[in-house]
C-alpha cells in the first residue's frame, strides 16, 4: 500500500495527538490528592463515557477500546498491527495451556480482543490440535504443553512461550515494510532480553536457562548478555554501556523501577520520530503505542493513589509521554 494512502489517517491522528497526555497533564494528574480526584480529572479530560462505571479498570478498558476503534477505522490492512498484539496472543496461549493442564476455569485471565480468539485457542489446546494455531505458535505450544504436563514446571512453560513470542516479533520486524515496525520489533526484543538477563541474574539461573530464554536480535549479542548475566549486575551494566542501551545501564544502577521505566521509555523513543512523519502507517502505529503507554502510566498513577504510595515513588514509575 502506498504511503500516500495514509494521508487522511495521519492527518486525523495529528488532530487526535492534541488530546494525548503531555508530561504537564501527567503532573496535573499526579497533583490530584486522592484516587477519586484522579478519576474526576480523567472524566473531565474525556476519559471513559457516559456508560462507563466510575472505576479505574472500566475507564482504562474503555480508552483502550476507543484507541483500537480509531485504528481499525483508519487502517484497512490490520496485519501491520499484528506484531503489536503478539504479546497478548502469546499470553492467551500461556493461559490456555495452564488452564487445560491444571483443569482450571478462569476466563478473566484472557485478553479478549485477539485473533484467534481466546475460545479458539482454548479449543485447539484442549484438543491438542496445535497445528490449528497460527504457525508461529505451533511448535512452542506443543513443547510448552508437554513440558507443563510432564514436569509441572510453569516457569519453563512460560520461558518457552515468551521466547517464541519474542522470536515471532523479531521475525515480523525483519519482514516488515515499515521502518517503525522494524524499529519497534528490534527495541522490544532487545529490551525484553535485557529484562530477562537482569531477572535471571537476580534469581541465579543457569547459563543454559538464560540462553534458552534470550531471543536473537541485531543490537545485542545474546551470548555476551547471557555470560554477563552469569557474572552479575556490574557485568550486565558494563556490557550494556557499550551498546545502544547504555542508558539502561544507568537506570539499572538507579533502581529496579527506574529500569522498568527506562524499558518503556525506550519504546516511546523509538516511535517518537513518527511525530514528524506526514505519510505512511508509522504515525498510526505510533499513536496506538503512545495511547497504550499513556493508559499504562495512568494505571500506575491510579494504583499508586489507591494504595497510598508517596508522590515521589509514583513519579519514579511514571513513563515518558509521546507528545
Amino acid at each position: 500500500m502506498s504511503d500516500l494512502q495514509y494521508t487522511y489517517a495521519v492527518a486525523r491522528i495529528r488532530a487526535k495527538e492534541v488530546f494525548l497526555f503531555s508530561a504537564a497533564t501527567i503532573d496535573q494528574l499526579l497533583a490530584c490528592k486522592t484516587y477519586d480526584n484522579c478519576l474526576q480529572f480523567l472524566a473531565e479530560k474525556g476519559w471513559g463515557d457516559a456508560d462507563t462505571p466510575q472505576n479505574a479498570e472500566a475507564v482504562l478498558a474503555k480508552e483502550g477500546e476507543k484507541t483500537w476503534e480509531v485504528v481499525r477505522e483508519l487502517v484497512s490492512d490490520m496485519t501491520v498491527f499484528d506484531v503489536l498484539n503478539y504479546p497478548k496472543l502469546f499470553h492467551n496461549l500461556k493461559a490456555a495451556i495452564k488452564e487445560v493442564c491444571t483443569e482450571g476455569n478462569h476466563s478473566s485471565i484472557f485478553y479478549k480482543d485477539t485473533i484467534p480468539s481466546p475460545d479458539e485457542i482454548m479449543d485447539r489446546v484442549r484438543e491438542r490440535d496445535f497445528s490449528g494455531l497460527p504457525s508461529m505458535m505451533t511448535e512452542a505450544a506443543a513443547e510448552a504443553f508437554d513440558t507443563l504436563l510432564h514436569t509441572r514446571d510453569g516457569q519453563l512453560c512460560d520461558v518457552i512461550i515468551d521466547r517464541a513470542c519474542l522470536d515471532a516479533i523479531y521475525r515480523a520486524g525483519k519482514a516488515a515494510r515499515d521502518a517503525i515496525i522494524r524499529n519497534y520489533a528490534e527495541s522490544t526484543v532487545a529490551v525484553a532480553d535485557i529484562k530477562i538477563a537482569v531477572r535471571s541474574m537476580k534469581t541465579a539461573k543457569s547459563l543454559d536457562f538464560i540462553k534458552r530464554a534470550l531471543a536473537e536480535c541485531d543490537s545485542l549479542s545474546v551470548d555476551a548478555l547471557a555470560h554477563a548475566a552469569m557474572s552479575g549486575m556490574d557485568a550486565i551494566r558494563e556490557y550494556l554501556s557499550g551498546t545502544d542501551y547504555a542508558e539502561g545501564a544507568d537506570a539499572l544502577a538507579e533502581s529496579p523501577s527506574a529500569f522498568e521505566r527506562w524499558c518503556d521509555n525506550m519504546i516511546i523513543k523509538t516511535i517518537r520520530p513518527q511525530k514528524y512523519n506526514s505519510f505512511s502507517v508509522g504515525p498510526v502505529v505510533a499513536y496506538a503505542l503512545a495511547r497504550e503507554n499513556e493508559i499504562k502510566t495512568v494505571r500506575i498513577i491510579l494504583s499508586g493513589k489507591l494504595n497510598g504510595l508517596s508522590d515521589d515513588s509514583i513519579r519514579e514509575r511514571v513513563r515518558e509521554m509521546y507528545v
Partner: protein
Amino acid sequence: MILENLGIVYALLGAALAVLLAGSGSAIGVGIAGQAAAGVVTEDPSKFAKVLIMQLLPGTQGIYGLLVGFITLSKVGLLGGGAAAIDVQTGLLILAACLPIGIAGLISAIYQGKTSAASIGIVAKKPDQFGKAMLFPAMVETYAILALLISILSVTAIQV
C-alpha cells in the same frame, strides 16, 4: 496536407500539454492535501477554513497551465475563429514554450500537495502557527511561477 498543417498541430499540442500536465499535477496535489484536510476536519470541524486554504494552494498550477493554454490559443488565432498559418518550426517553438509550465506545474503541484498535507498536520496540532505553516507549501509555488513567467514570455515573443 498533414505536413502543411503540422505547425498548428504542434502549437495546439503545446497548449494541450500546458493545461493537461499542470492541471493533472494540481488535481493530484489538491487531492493529497484534501485527504489531509478531511482527516483534520473529521476530528475538529472548526479548522475547516484554515485547512481549506492549505488544500487550495496546489491548485494554482492548473490555473497557470490554463492561462498559458489561453495565450497560446489566442496567439495561433484559434480563439478568434481563424487559425493562423503556422510553419512547423514556429509550431515546435510554441510547443517548447509551453513545456516549462506543463512539466514544472505537474511536479511542483504534486510536491506542493505533499507539503500542504504536512503543513495541515501543523495546523491540526498548533492552529496559531497557521501563518508559518502556510509558508512551506507557498515556497514550492515559486518554481511554478518562474515556469509560468518563462512560458508566457516565450509564447508572446514568438512571431506568428
